[in-house]
C-alpha cells in the first residue's frame, strides 16, 4: 500500500528521519515502533502531507503522493489520527462524526439553495451511519455532548470512529492506546481488530508491546530516524538491535 524511498527530514540540526525506505505490503495491520524521538510521528507527518520531506519519495497504491497537500492525501484514502487526540471540542460528538463524511453535497453553497432535498437525504444517511459508529464505540450516551467534555480515552475512541467515518482505504493511528486505562486499551484493540475484519488497513505507531504483538502482522522499528529492523512480531522481539535500541545499551 504505502511505500517510502530514501525519506529524510531534519528540523534545524535534528535529523528526525534519515533515508527511510519501507514498504507496507499485504498486511492488514503494520506496526511502527521505536524509542521516543525516533521519528515515528515525523514519518506519519510526511506520509500524510503535513510536512514536506527534505528528500525521498512516498507512494500510495503505486502513485506518488509526496508533495500533495494533507487534504489531498486524505481524499486519496489515507486518514490519520493524532498522538495527542484532536477532537473538535466545541462541537457535539455527532457533529464530530458528521463532519468527517467526504464530499458532502451540502458543503457547496449553491446546493444549499438548489439541492436541499439531496442534502436532506444525504444527511439522514450520514446521521444513521454516524450513530451506528458512535454506538459501536460505546459513546451513544454522549452523542450530544461537546466532544471537549469527553474523557481522554473517549476522545481517542471518537477519533477512531471519526477516521472510519471518513471512509478511507487506510488509517494511520499515532499511539492509539497511549494515556488511556487498561479496559479502554482492550476496547480499542477489539475495535481495531473488528475494523480489520471489515477490510480496513492500518499503520499503527504504538509503545505498548502487548498491543503491538497482539495486533500487528508486520513491524518496522525506527531508531534515531533510521529503520533498524522489520519483521514479524516474534522476530522483532528477539532482534538484538531492537533490544539494544529499547534498552539503550
Amino acid at each position, binding site marked *: 500500500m504505502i511505500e517510502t524511498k530514501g525519506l529524510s527530514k531534519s528540523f534545524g540540526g535534528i535529523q528526525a528521519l534519515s533515508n527511510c525506505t519501507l514498504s507496507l505490503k499485504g498486511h492488514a495491520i503494520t506496526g511502527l515502533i521505536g524509542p521516543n524521538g525516533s521519528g515515528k510521528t515525523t514519518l506519519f507527518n510526511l506520509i*500524510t502531507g*503535513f510536512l514536506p520531506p527534505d528528500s525521498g519519495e512516498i507512494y500510495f497504491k503505486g502513485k506518488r503522493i509526496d508533495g500533495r*497537500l*494533507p*487534504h489531498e492525501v*486524505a*481524499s486519496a484514502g489515507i*486518514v*490519520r*489520527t*493524532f498522538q495527542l487526540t*484532536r*477532537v*473538535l*471540542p*466545541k*462541537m*457535539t460528538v455527532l*457533529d464530530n462524526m*458528521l*463532519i*468527517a*463524511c*467526504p464530499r*458532502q*453535497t*451540502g*458543503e*457547496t*453553497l449553491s446546493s*444549499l*439553495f438548489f439541492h436541499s432535498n439531496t*442534502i436532506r437525504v444525504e*444527511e439522514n444517511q450520514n446521521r444513521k451511519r454516524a450513530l451506528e459508529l458512535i454506538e459501536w464505540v460505546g459513546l451513544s450516551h454522549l452523542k*450530544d*455532548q*461537546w466532544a*471537549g*467534555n469527553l474523557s481522554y480515552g473517549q476522545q481517542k475512541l471518537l477519533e477512531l470512529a*471519526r*477516521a472510519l467515518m*471518513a471512509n478511507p482505504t487506510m488509517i494511520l493511528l499515532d499511539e492509539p492506546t497511549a494515556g488511556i486505562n487498561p479496559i479502554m486499551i482492550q476496547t480499542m484493540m477489539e475495535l481495531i481488530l473488528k475494523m480489520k475484519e471489515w477490510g480496513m488497513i492500518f499503520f499503527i505507531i504504538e509503545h505498548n508491546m502487548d498491543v503491538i504483538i497482539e495486533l500487528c502482522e508486520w513491524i518496522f522499528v525506527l531508531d534515531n530516524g533510521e529503520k533498524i529492523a522489520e519483521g514479524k512480531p516474534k522476530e522483532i522481539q528477539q532482534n538484538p538491535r531492537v533490544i539494544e535500541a529499547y534498552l539503550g545499551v
Partner: protein
Amino acid sequence: MDLFLHLWIMIFIYSIFAMSLNLEMGYTGLFNFGHIAFFGIGAYTSALLTLHQIPFALAFVVALVASGFFGFLLSIPSLRLRGDYFGIATLGFGEILRMVFQNEVWLTKGPMGLPGIPKPILFSYRFATLPQYLLLTMGLTIVTFLILRIIIRSPLGRTLRGIREDEIVLMALGKNAFHFKIKSVVIGSVFAGLAGVLWTHYTTFISPGDFTLSETILVLLIVVLGGKGTEWGPLMGAFVLIFFQESLRFLKLPTEWGRYLAPLQQMIFGGLLIFLMIYRPEGLIREKGEGR
C-alpha cells in the same frame, strides 16, 4: 418618532454588518480586522454608480459582487497566513482601502466625500421616507438572517465551525480548509457590502472618514457582546450598542462636550471589547451545545 425610526434603521444596518462578520469570526474563527473595507466597497460602489445614473437595482448587484470579489482577492494571500497574521493582513487592507477612498480623488472626490447620493428605487418604488427605508432595511435584514441561517445550519456551516475548532483535523479528514475559509470570507464580504449599500443610500453622504478602524471595532464589539457563533447574537449586540451610540448622539449635550465624547466613546468601546474577550468571551448569548 423620527429618532425612533432612525434608531431602528441603524440597528438593522449594523445587524447585517455584524451578521456578516459573525460568519467569519464566530463560525469560521477568522478574526477579520478590516471588515469595514467591504462595507466601504459596497457603499462607494453603489454610491458612485447611482450618482452616475445607473439604476439602483443594478448598482446594488454590482456593489455586492464587488464586495465579494474584493473579499476573494484579499482572502487568497491573507488566508495563507496563519491565525493572527490573517488579522494583521486584514487590518492593513482596511487601512489601505481607506487611503484609496481618500487619495483616488478622480473617482471618490477624496476627503470631500460624495454628497447627494440618491434614495433607492426598486421596481419604480422609491424608498425615500424613514418608514419606507425602515421597511427596506428590515426586509433585507430578515433575508440576510435567513440566508446565513441556512448556511450555518448546513453541512457547509458545520465544516466552517470545524475549521474554527481545528483546521488541522479537517485537513486530515480530507477537507480543503483554505477553500472553505475563502468561501466564508467571500460570503461575509458580500453581506458587509449589503450593509454598506443600505447605509450609503440612507445617509446620502459618504466620505473616507466613515470607514475607519473604529467602525471595525464597533462591529467587532457588536458580535462579541451579542455572542459570537450564535444566530441571534449579532442582532442583540447591534440593538444594545447602536441604541447606546445613537442615543448619545441625540442627547442635547453642550456642544463643547462633543470634543471629548467621541474619543471617550471609542475608549469605552475598545475597553469593553478587551474586557469581554477576557471575561465573557461568549457574550450575551451563548453558543448552543451541552457544554460546561
